[in-house]
């Protein structure tokens, strides 16, 4: 009897999940950033999580100096809220780490926080910085859990469990999941976890769970709501059932409602964007590139290209057409949402996505939504013979090496 299969021949859910998530979590923890120096975005999330966990409030009065225009985004992303300085990011990621900070607050050090690269050098500001270990634990754990759920979703598409397990391990090690999401408390790890849970729930027709998870993903990274809309509507239309649309819509509405309520309370206006600066157009003007060029660079540029640094994705595109034809509707719906999310992300955001990390990070959530279709495409590709298998193997190995090295030196 195969140890991952039950007496009925079906995968044992918790075993398939654990055999992927646990080893990945151990690896992620070993390579994560445990202390300063830390990237600006996850440092902002970590400090907010500490504040919520220990004081019950996202307000960061000690960081008022960083709301001055010349400091914004140079050390942490703190902006003026209704009642004081607050992270510009949505609360989803800090909320996941807050319980850990409430339980294991650890030492709070007084640090001279220097401003990162910019037009003018700025003096350091002395502020309290909590232990970053809880953030490393949550960032790595959520990414590992995301890959566990992806393995479960893959297992629903394949007659074996070996293929899904290996595919989930490659997804977890050969992409920015390792080099970025698992490295610190970015928004990516938590958002990927909620999206992967939502997609697996959709695969098993647990529509309410799927909707609630999509909502939590939106509370973490608001654009994730696009995937919820795609899954709910496409599945409902294709199957001519109202339930997927209603359950996914209402479930996701809970998280989206919480986000709007948070933004109303903290920033004074009931929006989805909260503290984000909406001057997207200015980025493209400043960098002197067009939006189409932005998308091309996101795919193939030497420093940030998705298809360069996870080259196995380029290879499995060979099987994408037959994969689309033979995939069930939930796979096509999630992939449509992922593609829309990818397009919107690069329509709005400059492809480099800031500095302080290697390779790519913006498309991570979209890649989770596209992952089931990519898995079917990978199966179709390797069926083309041993040369195709060898190429996918080689590209996967190269991607794993690259992202592993990047995870250690950033």
């Amino acid at each position, binding site marked *: 009897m*195969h*140890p*991952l*299969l039950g007496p009925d*021949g079906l*995968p044992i859910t918790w*075993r398939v999940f*654990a*055999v*992927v998530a*646990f*080893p*990945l979590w*151990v*690896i992620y*923890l*070993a*390579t*994560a*950033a*445990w*202390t*300063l*120096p*830390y990237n600006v975005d996850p440092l902002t999330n970590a400090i907010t999580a500490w504040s919520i966990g220990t004081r019950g409030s996202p307000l960061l009065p000690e960081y008022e100096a960083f709301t001055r225009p010349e400091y914004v985004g140079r050390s942490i992303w703190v902006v003026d809220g209704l009642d004081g300085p607050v992270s510009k990011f949505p609360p989803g990621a800090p909320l996941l780490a807050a319980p850990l900070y409430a339980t294991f607050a650890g030492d709070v050090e007084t640090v001279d926080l220097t401003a990162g690269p910019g037009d003018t050098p700025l003096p350091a500001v002395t502020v309290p910085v909590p232990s970053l270990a809880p953030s*490393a634990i949550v960032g790595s754990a959520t990414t590992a859990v995301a890959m566990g759920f992806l393995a479960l979703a893959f297992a629903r598409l*394949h*007659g*074996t*469990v*070996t*293929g899904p*397990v*290996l595919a989930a*391990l490659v997804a*977890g*090690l050969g992409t920015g999941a390792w080099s970025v999401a698992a490295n610190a408390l970015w928004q990516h790890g938590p958002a990927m976890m909620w999206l992967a849970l939502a997609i697996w729930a959709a695969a098993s027709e647990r529509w309410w769970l799927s909707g609630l998870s999509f909502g939590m993903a939106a509370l973490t990274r608001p654009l994730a709501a696009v995937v919820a809309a795609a899954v709910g509507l496409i599945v409902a239309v294709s199957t001519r059932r109202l339930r997927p649309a209603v359950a996914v819509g209402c479930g996701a509405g809970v998280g989206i409602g919480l986000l709007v309520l948070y933004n109303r309370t903290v920033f004074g206006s009931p929006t989805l964007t909260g503290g984000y600066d909406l001057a997207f157009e200015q980025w493209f003007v400043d960098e002197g590139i067009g939006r189409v060029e932005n998308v091309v660079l996101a795919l193939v540029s030497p420093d940030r290209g998705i298809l360069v640094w996870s080259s196995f994705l380029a290879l499995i595109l060979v099987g994408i057409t037959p994969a689309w034809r033979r995939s069930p509707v939930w796979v096509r719906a999630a992939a449509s949402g992922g593609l829309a999310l990818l397009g919107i992300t690069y329509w709005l955001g400059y492809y480099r996505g800031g500095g302080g990390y290697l390779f790519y990070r913006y498309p991570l959530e979209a890649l989770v939504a596209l992952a089931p279709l990519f898995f079917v495409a990978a199966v179709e590709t390797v069926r083309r013979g*041993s040369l195709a*298998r*060898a190429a996918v*193997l*080689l590209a996967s*190995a*190269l991607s*794993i*090496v*690259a992202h*592993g*090295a*990047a*995870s*250690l*030196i950033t």
Partner: protein
Amino acid sequence: MNTRRPLPGSMSPSRDPAQHSFVLPGVAALLGLVSASLIRVGHDEAYWTAIAGMVRYGADLYDTAIDNRSPLVYVVFGALDVMPGPFTWWRGATVGVVLATIGLQARRVLPDDVPDWIICAALVTAGLSSTLYLTIELLALAGLMLALASAACVAAVAAAGLRISAGSDGGE
């Protein structure tokens, strides 16, 4: 006409895992050892080794010996540093062992129609190409990563007691 049929229960030669056991990981390990031994110590490696040395002589990690990696990184590089002989030789040996481990696991996991030389080429290319990825100094780092990746596969297989081979799965 002399037709020979295999005895009932016998395995075809291409499915005998013992045939693959030593040549593939041996070649990969040797190439990894030689190449990693020839490359000088990189900036990050030197820093991690220095931090490990400070801790060995009484400094507190993250307090008076300050860097942001996990303790495992300093344990690994501290261990390589205290071994007799050149650091690069032990680094090369580590990369060799890593490649051998991955080679063995890859042979078990992959179907028989993926030939040994392709797996070997993938391993060696992955090891060497890491120098192209992230400056020539980071091969050993890539080796460490390969070790961790391999550990994931090994742990995944061991935890479930999997004996992965073609046909032993649920079957599609």
